[in-house]
């Protein structure tokens, strides 16, 4: 097989002078010096700048409402409850005039693994996993009821 680079033996004199005058060492110093320019620096300062995540990122769940009349889009078909591999979702419904109306909807985000199977199973655009990933709280309130799901997750803005 052919080698990609061949080994060329350097002359003894040039190697000797390179080690006396520390040429490679100074080249290394120049490289690290030039790494200091601000265009190289891609650090994102977290609480002030949030990372921009993809549109399909699976974050906190939200129960969407119809934008025109404000009613919930959920048809209480319970497909999300069937699809969830961890059984985080509990859907409660009642039958009014031959239509299922949603009454209670609880979602346990403590156990949820954000796989998105419930979002895929839902036939309407009601259940959606948003891009919100900052879900830490001070109390153990991991079971979200319908109202909190419809309001959507709360984003805290940091000023510094």
């Amino acid at each position: 097989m052919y080698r990609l680079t061949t080994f060329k033996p350097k002359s003894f004199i040039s190697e000797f002078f390179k080690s006396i005058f520390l040429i490679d060492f100074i080249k290394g110093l120049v490289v690290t010096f030039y790494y200091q320019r601000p265009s190289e620096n891609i650090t994102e300062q977290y609480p002030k700048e949030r990372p921009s995540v993809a549109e399909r990122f699976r974050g906190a769940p939200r129960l969407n409402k119809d934008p025109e009349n404000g009613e919930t889009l959920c048809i209480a078909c319970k497909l999300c409850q069937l699809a969830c591999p961890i059984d985080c979702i509990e859907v409660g419904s009642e039958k009014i005039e031959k239509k299922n109306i949603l009454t209670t909807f609880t979602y346990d985000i403590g156990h949820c693994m954000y796989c998105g199977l419930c979002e895929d199973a839902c036939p309407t655009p009601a259940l959606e996993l948003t891009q919100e990933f900052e879900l830490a709280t001070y109390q153990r309130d991991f079971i979200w009821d319908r109202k909190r799901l419809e309001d959507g997750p709360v984003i805290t803005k940091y000023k510094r």
Partner: protein
Amino acid sequence: MVEYFLIPAVQILIIFLVLLLFVAYATYLERKVVAFMQVRLGPMRVGPYGLLQPIADAVKLMFKEDIVPAGADKWIFMFAPVITMIPAFTVFSVIPFSDSHTTVFGYPVHLYITDVNVGILFVLALSSIGVFGIILGGWSSNSKYPLLGSLRSAAQMVSYEVAMGFAIVSVLIYSRSLSMIDIVNAQKDMGWWFAVIQPIGFFIYLICGVAETNRAPFDLPEAESELVAGFHTEYSGFRFAIYFMAEYANMILISSIAATLFWGGWLSPFPNVKALSFLQVVPGVVWFFLKVFFFMYLYIWLRATLPRFRYDQLMRVGWKYLIPISIGNVILTAVLRLYFRT
């Protein structure tokens, strides 16, 4: 009475406090510069741009629990960091920041604390005492890694002191005096800084200076990944802070001596050239601090760039290469000075 006691006491207090401030902000400078060279930002949250980070570190270290390991030699354990710190700070009494005189309430005040006839010898002697603190600290910790780290560190410091001494001797051949002020004045008389006349001596001094303070690339004895933390493994809280301050004070010391001996102390570049006399507008103290700042930056730059020497490579460089080169430099300088008057 006042001149001999009160004024030096006030000067000592001022220099000590300023030095503590510089040591604290040297840690900040190091973190920021190493971070920028590693394409990241360093401390940014504590104050504006992280400027209050050293204060946060100091407060944290003061509140940490003070652990003395079981089986450790208690008094020596407590005293060892102090042995390292005291010479590191005391040496600043002979370093001249400038030669300008002012009068305060009618008494002449100069910007250095004292000008000993044997200034540079005093500096070398005190920096050798600092080695004791390291050996005693590691030995009294009653633990394997500090013991090994301290022995290696002491051996390294002792072997690089020889080469450093010879590099300094090559400067003394030109300055004919051990006093620090006379060395700077000799550079003024010659018109050139000694780094230009003695480049070999300068580089050897820098390399030995980096090795003396146990800084990268010679920091195997205290490297975080090699020997846990070397001789200061068992130290926590404020004792660790004392070792840390002593290390940074030693860095500032080596930088100041390099600035004084090789880069002209408080002189501006090309001090005798009339065309550049506009540079004299900047006071000598400012030039001195700029030079010290450059050497500190060089220290940090070296840390961010170079990998670490293995211990046998380190000792080989010190004994087999640097000492013969520095002795050769002294002989060459002496011959040139004697026969050619250069």
